[in-house]
């Protein structure tokens, strides 16, 4: 193990597997929520290590932050103990094994990792890298959109090449958030309305 980052990565992934197994094994649902938070933090480090900064941010904010709170909200309406039942489901295991085998079979068609002749590498990536990043939609007459200030190719792709896509993704997530609030609010409000109504009746 000459590469320190590789050694750290292996140890972190082992910890992540341990956390995931513990979250499945425990019957205490509150403990499982916390273990999933730990799992998300470990994965977030891994994403950062793979230079996937946007994914890493998302994993930390959604996985460790929002998911924890969402699962806790679910726990407020249920119990915190898992019902005792059979731990082994043959059908579920078979489904997972078959799905996993199909997915692994599917990867045999993919180009080798880092292959310079892969379609993704030769088709559009050169344009993104050589340019042109930061000169999206620019014509002779107009200045470029970002004023050459987007050195990160991922940011340029997200914010400009796929700008509409990202914008409407945001709209979809906003709509989903509004729906969740609309669904959850009456539960909190109806109790108050009931007590107010009973006072009026009296």
């Amino acid at each position, binding site marked *: 193990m000459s590469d*320190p*980052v590789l*050694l*750290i990565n292996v*140890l*972190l992934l082992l*910890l992540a597997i*341990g*956390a995931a197994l*513990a979250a499945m094994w*425990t019957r*205490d649902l*509150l*403990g499982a*929520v*916390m*273990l999933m*938070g*730990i799992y998300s*933090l*470990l994965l*977030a*480090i891994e994403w*950062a*290590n793979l230079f996937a*900064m946007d994914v*890493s*941010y998302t994993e*930390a*904010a959604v996985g*460790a*932050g929002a998911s*924890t*709170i969402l699962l*806790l*909200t679910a*726990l*407020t309406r249920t119990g915190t103990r898992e019902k005792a039942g059979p731990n082994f489901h043959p059908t579920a295991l078979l489904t997972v094994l078959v799905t996993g085998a199909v997915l692994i079979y599917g990867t045999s068609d993919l180009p080798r990792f880092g292959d310079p002749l892969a379609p993704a590498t030769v088709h559009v990536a050169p344009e993104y890298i050589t340019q042109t990043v930061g000169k999206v939609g620019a014509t002779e007459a107009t200045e470029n959109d970002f004023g050459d200030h987007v050195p990160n190719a991922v940011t340029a792709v997200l914010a400009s090449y796929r700008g509409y896509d990202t914008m409407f993704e945001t709209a979809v997530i906003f709509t989903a958030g509004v729906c969740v609030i609309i669904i959850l609010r009456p539960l*909190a409000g109806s109790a108050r309305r009931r007590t107010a109504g009973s006072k009026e009746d009296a």
Partner: protein
Amino acid sequence: MNAELITALLVIGGAFLALLRAVKGPTTFDRVLAVNVFGTKTVVLLALLGYIGDRTGFLDIAVLYALVNFLGTIALLKFVETRRLG
């Protein structure tokens, strides 16, 4: 073995102990503390990895994780105390 690697291994060892505590419990507060400790280890590890790989952007992410960690701990403790979040 250089100093960064030894530090990283020690931090990972601490993270492993925190994970053990989160699994074993026995009380909820042990687990909350373990998660909080784990978040701190994450911040330190990210800063270390940034130093090893000479990537300054890691520091921003480390700060973000510190904030998220704080938020999660507050939500967990609020749930434990009142059994609701609102």
